[in-house]
């Protein structure tokens, strides 16, 4: 038996291309994601003070003279030193500044195009324009206020909102979770590969295996065990790579991360066996179907576009329920976000149920294989 286990490992690990696609490729993808996407989602949306030019000398009566220092102090804008209008226009054209602000009859803002920066600037200066008309109305009703400190008080901006703090919120984690899901779904490929060495009609190696003096059940169990160990080690290596060098959080509940991953892994391998024993035809067709299922499931849980995970969950709930990759990323997301463990438990139960059904059906088929008696 020890020899059989040894040769099963040797045969499966001898496929260097399989190892490349199921281990090195996901590691490389994780690396590429961390080089690019993490930074994009941490800086692309981060707010920085918007640089503007005010190419005129402001007198003491000017509204801008009063409000610009306040806005600079609040890190909303950054006024550059340009005082020449033509230079400011060149800077705006070249994208060095986001707007030119001038005060003539009222505040006038010159922009190049509609960007989020120009939108924010418009909001800020709209607010100032509105306050000006508001003050005119107030002073017409109560002129004595004009002589007080009311103007300064009006132009002081107060804070009305408080952000619900959630520093954990990072869109980029979904890319890594779906990558882990893809890695686990490669168990389907391993399952397909494994039956190639198990069904006598499919390969010379399988033929030799089947004439070995060992019970069928034992052969199948060893086979599943070997595939499970290989894929589990691959998943573990990818997890450690993502978790530590790349520093992507999976939450604090490691036990549940492992449980959800192992359940999905079992199901992926069982699906691989199921596809392989029921689908007739050439090996490449079986491998092709396994690849297509892996990619479709990974895609639908947000590997290429994280928002797709939400859309699938909302509009195709039945597909989300039968997709082990979706259930797994949902569990990771739940653990990361610190939501109820019951969601993870439910996902694991559904995943295991799919796996058990696939395993039983595959076992029935494998058990029914009959070969000519020697």
């Amino acid at each position, binding site marked *: 038996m020890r020899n059989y286990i040894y040769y099963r490992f040797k045969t499966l690990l001898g496929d260097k291309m399989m190892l490349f696609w199921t281990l090195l490729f996901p590691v490389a993808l994780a690396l590429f994601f961390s080089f690019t996407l993490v930074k994009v989602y941490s800086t692309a949306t981060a707010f920085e003070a918007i640089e503007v030019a005010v190419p005129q000398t402001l007198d003491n009566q000017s509204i801008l003279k009063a409000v610009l220092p306040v806005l600079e102090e609040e890190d909303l804008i950054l006024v550059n030193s340009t005082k020449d209008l033509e230079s400011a226009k060149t800077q705006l054209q070249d994208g060095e500044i986001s707007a030119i602000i001038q005060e003539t009859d009222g505040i006038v803002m010159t*922009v*190049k*195009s509609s960007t989020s920066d120009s939108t924010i600037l418009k909001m800020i200066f709209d607010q100032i324009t509105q306050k000006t*008309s508001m003050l005119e109305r*107030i002073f017409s009703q109560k002129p004595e206020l004009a002589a007080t400190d009311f103007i300064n008080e009006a132009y002081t901006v107060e804070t009305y*909102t408080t952000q619900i703090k959630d520093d954990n919120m990072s869109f980029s984690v979904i890319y890594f979770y779906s990558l882990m899901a893809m890695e686990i779904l490669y168990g389907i490929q391993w399952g397909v590969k494994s039956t190639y060495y198990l069904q006598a009609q499919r390969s010379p190696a399988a033929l030799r295996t089947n004439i070995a003096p060992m019970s069928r059940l034992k052969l199948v169990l060893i086979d599943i065990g070997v595939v499970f160990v290989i894929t589990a080690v691959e998943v573990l290596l990818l997890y450690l790579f993502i978790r530590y060098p790349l520093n992507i959080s999976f939450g604090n509940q490691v036990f549940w991360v492992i449980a959800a991953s192992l359940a999905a892994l079992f199901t992926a391998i069982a699906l691989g066996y199921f596809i392989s024993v029921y689908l007739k035809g050439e090996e490449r067709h079986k491998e092709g179907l396994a690849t297509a299922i892996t990619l479709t499931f990974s895609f639908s849980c947000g590997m290429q576009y*994280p928002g797709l995970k939400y859309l699938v969950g909302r509009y195709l709930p039945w597909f989300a329920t039968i997709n082990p990759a979706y259930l797994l990323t949902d569990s990771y997301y739940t653990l990361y976000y610190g939501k109820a463990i019951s969601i993870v438990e439910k996902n694991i139960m559904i995943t295991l149920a799919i796996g058990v059904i696939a395993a039983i059906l595959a076992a029935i088929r494998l058990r029914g294989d009959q070969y000519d008696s020697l």
Partner: protein
Amino acid sequence: MTVFKTCLRILRAIPGVFLLPFAVFMGILALLSFQYSYNPEQTSLTFTKATICVIDEDESALSQGLIEYLEKTTDYQGICEADYSDKVFYNFLDGALIIPKGYQENFNSNRLPVSALVYPGSTLSVMLEETVSSYLEGYRIYNKADLNVSNLQILEWIKADTDNTTKVEVLAGSGAADPREALAGMFSASTYVIIITVVSAIATLLIIFNQTQVKVRADVSGCNTVWVNTQKLLAGLLVGFATWLVCMAILYVLLHDYYATAYVPVILLNSFAMLLSSLGLAFMLGSIIKTPIVLNAFINIFALGGGFLSGSFVPQQFLDPIILLIARFLPQYWNVAANDAIVSANSVGAAWKALSIPLCVQILFGVVFALAGFVISRQKRRAQLV
């Protein structure tokens, strides 16, 4: 032209080489269409609106007034649904506002804050804060002035005041929608499909022809070696150009509205330079690599990895300077850099000028790759003869 025809027959037998990258490409284009918004009808400025939902626990005149204002100034989605936090996480909402119970009652003393669930530190969170602030500042100031008028009167005044907006002018020559950014973004992404398809197809052909049995048969045939190689080269070039044309046709069909710019020839030439780099790379890999399986692994890493590192999928401005420094040794970097330069060019003349260096570098990559392939295959042939 037996060899030429055989090459085409081989390619017909491996349609996956073409179909899979094109399918991925279509997917990438679909995803990028979310990132780039271009409306050819747009002739003036349209400002971004945050997509929000609100939970109104107060249900007062003030909270209703605020919601009316938000309906006018944001892309208001109504009352928040139960999964609003998921929607914010997945960027389907820019934010969710929660107006607490007793907000109007406690506005002037012990004011409760309006809670905002937004992506932390994002630009849109600032936008949302400014929008809320615009309305509530009015309420604060009128209350502070103590004008002895009703609450409803104050809300009416605020409604009127918020109609006053800042005058916005557009810099001469700007304002209308410019398709360059979207077009350049899509063309940058197309480098992936050009490389992977051209290299996979041509290098696979060369690998098959380099197999000993095939090679020996070709050598003992009556055909001149130079003529055989010329036919292989012609087949390779035909496949390369055809792939590029198909890629361009897909881009045109999907993005024909975006082609209404004089910068299109510059962008097309840049893309053609990428084809030349890919052809050189294909000839080199076809000489070095022995099996299509290894080629498949290598080219996937090169095309996908190079795409990520060079900014084909995310803008170069978000990439680490060290990554960009490494990416300079990849042709994709120069292609994307040229596209970026074309986007920021002030005139078509400036765009042509900006393209010159990246164009030369991409062609140089192609020449160096092809020469390296030629030298390696020559050395291999000599080693076999010895």
